[in-house]
C-alpha cells in the first residue's frame, strides 16, 4: 500500500504541483491549504508531513508543535524566508528536515524518499542483492551461488563499501580503514586491490562504481 503524505501549503498553484509530483512518485497525498484546518488534522495516518511555514490561520510552526504532541511523524518544512532562526526554531520544535523555495520537484521527491527510507538490509549480518551474497560475520562472498575467494584487504574493502550502500567513500578514507598502516599503502595501492576485487566479482563488479574525484561507491539497487 502506498504511503500517505500530508501536504500543508497555501499557494494554490504550488500546492497542486507538489501534490502532482508526489503522486507521480507513487505516494498517496492529502493537501490542506489552511493553517487552522491543518492544526485540526490528525497526523497519525500519515507517513510524512510537508509543512509550509507561512500559512493563513495557524502559523506553520504552531501546527508542528501541535503535531508533535501526539506524533513522531517525519515533518519536512517548506520555507521561502530562508533565515537560520526559522531553521533552528523548526528543528527545535521537532522538524526533521527543511527544503527552501524554490526547489526542483526531483529535489523534493529525493528529500521525501530520504526521510521515508527504511533500512533494507541487516547491516551487521550481510547483504543479498542481485546475484551477490555477502556474509559479513563469516567473511564469505558468493556470486550466483559460487563462492569467491577474497584476500583480507579485498574483503575489507568490499565490506567498507557495503556497510554504507549508495554512499561514495573517498580513497583516503578507504586507505585509512582497509590498508595495513605498517605497509604505507597509498591510493594507488588501493586501486590495484580494487581492480582485483572487481575481476573476482565478475558480473556483480558493476555494483562498485568509480566516483570521479572521490573514490568508490557500492550500488545496492536490485536492478543494477
Amino acid at each position, binding site marked *: 500500500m502506498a504511503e500517505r503524505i500530508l501536504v500543508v501549503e497555501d499557494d494554490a*498553484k504550488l500546492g497542486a504541483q507538489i501534490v502532482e509530483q508526489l503522486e507521480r512518485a507513487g505516494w498517496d497525498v492529502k493537501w490542506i491549504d489552511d493553517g487552522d484546518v491543518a492544526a485540526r488534522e490528525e497526523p497519525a495516518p500519515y507517513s510524512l508531513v510537508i509543512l509550509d511555514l507561512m500559512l493563513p490561520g495557524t502559523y506553520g510552526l504552531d501546527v508542528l508543535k501541535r503535531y508533535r504532541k501526539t506524533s513522531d511523524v517525519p515533518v519536512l518544512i517548506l520555507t521561502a524566508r530562508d533565515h537560520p532562526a526559522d531553521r533552528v526554531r523548526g528543528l527545535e520544535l521537532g522538524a526533521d528536515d527543511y527544503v527552501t*523555495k524554490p526547489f526542483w520537484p526531483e*529535489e523534493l521527491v529525493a528529500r521525501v524518499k*530520504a526521510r521515508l527510507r527504511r533500512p533494507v538490509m541487516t547491516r551487521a549480518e550481510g547483504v543479498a542483492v542481485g546475484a551477490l551474497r555477502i556474509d559479513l560475520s563469516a567473511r564469505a562472498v558468493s556470486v550466483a551461488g559460487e563462492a569467491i575467494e577474497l584476500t583480507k584487504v579485498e574483503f575489507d574493502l568490499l565490506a567498507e563499501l557495503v556497510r*554504507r550502500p549508495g554512499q*561514495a567513500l573517498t580513497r583516503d578514507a578507504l586507505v585509512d580503514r582497509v590498508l595495513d598502516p605498517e605497509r604505507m599503502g597509498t591510493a594507488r595501492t588501493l586501486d590495484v586491490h580494487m581492480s582485483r576485487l572487481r575481476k573476482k566479482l565478475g558480473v556483480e563488479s558493476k555494483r562498485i562504481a568509480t566516483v570521479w574525484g572521490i573514490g568508490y561507491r557500492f550500488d545496492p539497487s536490485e536492478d543494477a
Partner: protein
Amino acid sequence: MKLRARLLATLIVLAIPIVAGFTLYTAWSSRQALVQATYETTVERMEAVGRERCEEVPEGFARRAGIRPGRALGPRALGPRGALGPGRRFGRMQAVYDDTYQPRIAGDPPLDPALRAELEGGAETAADFGDQRVRIAMRMPWDGPCSVIVVDRPAGDLAGRAAASRTAGLAAGVVAVTALAAFLALAPVVRRIRRLEAAVKGQASGGYEGSVPIEGSDEVADLARAFNEASSQIRLRLEELSARDKALTEFLQSTTHDVMVPLTVLQGHLSDLRRIGGDSEPVVRAAMEEAHYLASLVKNLNAAARLDAGEPMIARHELDLGELVERVVSRHAPIAKTRGIALNHSIPEEPVHVNADSTLLEQMVGNLVHNAIRYNQEGGHVAVILERGFRVTVKDDGPGIPEEELERVGERQFRGGEARQRRPTGLGLGLHIVRDVAERHGYALTFESPEEGGLTVVIRGAEV
C-alpha cells in the same frame, strides 16, 4: 603638549625677558642716579667756593682740594666743612680741565678720549663704569679754565647693584607664585575636560545614546553642550538610516518570498516540460538553467544583504555539515543532470558538527557547487567531499582559473578567465559571498587549479 606643560612653558617664555629687562632697567637707572647726584653736588660746591679758587690759584686749589691720584677730595677744596654733610659720601676729584680739555694743572693726565668725545658731543656728563670705581667727567655750567671736572667714585656707591638682584629675585618669585596660582586654577578645568573626554568616548561607543553631563557655565560647559547637540544630530541620522535599512531588509525579505513561490512553480513546469519533451530539448535545458540561476541570484542578494548588515544578522548555531552537504547536492543535482554533469558527494559516517549560520554556509557551499556545474561542459564531473576536521572540498574538471587570477577570486567585481566569462553575471557576487562567509566564520579558503585541470576549492574550519 598637555595643557599644564603648555601653561608652564608660556610662563617661562614670558617671565625670562620681563625679569631680565627689569634687572637691566634697575641697573641703568641706578647708574643714572649716581652720575646725576655727583654732578649736582660738584656744581653746588664749585659754585660755592671751588670755582674761584681753581681759577685764581689752581695749584693751591689742587693742593687744598687734594687732587693727587688716590687722595680723597678734601672738604676744604670744595667748600666749608659741613657743606658735604656728615657721613655723606663723595668721590675723589681727579683732575680739572679747561674749555679745550687741557689740564688746569700742568702734568695732570689728559682727559680719557672716550669721555672727552662724549662731552664734546654735547652731553653734560660722561661716565666710565669700572669694576672698582666709576669715573665721571662733568661739564660745569660755565666756561673758563675750570669748566670740566673729573671725579672718581667707588663702585660700591652704585646703590642699584644689590637692588637689581633683589628685583630679579622678586620678579622670579612673582612668576613662581603666578605659575602656582595658574596651576591650581587649571587643575579643576583639566579634571573637567578629562571627565568630558571620558563621557564623550563612552557615548560614542554606545551609539550616541544619552548625553554628556554639563558642569558649570564656562567654555568647557559650552563644549559639552556643543557635543550633545552634535550627537543628537548623529543619533537622528543613525535612527533614520537604521529605519531605512530595516524597511529595505523587510522589503527584500517579502520580495524574496513573493519571488520564490512562483519561481518554485516555474521550476515545476520546466521539470514537466523536460519530462514530456525529454532531456534533448536544448530550449528546456537553457530555461532550467536560467531558472536555477535566478533562484541562486535572489538567494545571493539576500545573503549579501545579511552579510552587509553585519554581525547582528548572522546567527550561529550547531548544525551537521553532512546534512548540509547533502542538501546542497540534492538542490543542484537536477540542474547537473540536465547539463549532463556527474555530481557526487562523500560524507563521513558520523555527523560533523559545526557552529555556523546554516543559511549562509549552505549558500557558500551551494555557490561553489553551482559554479562548478555552470562552468563545466557536458560529460564533466563535480565532487563535493566532507572530511572530519573539518574540510569541505568542491572540485571540478572544468576550465579552471589561471594561476595569476586565483588570488583575486572572490573580489566583488572579479570574474576570472575567458572561459568563465561566457556568463558574465553573477559569478562575482557568488564568489564574493563565499569569501565573505568564510571570513565571518573564520574558515580558511583556498582556490587551486591542479595540474590535471579544473578548479579545487577547499574550506577548512573547526568542528564543535
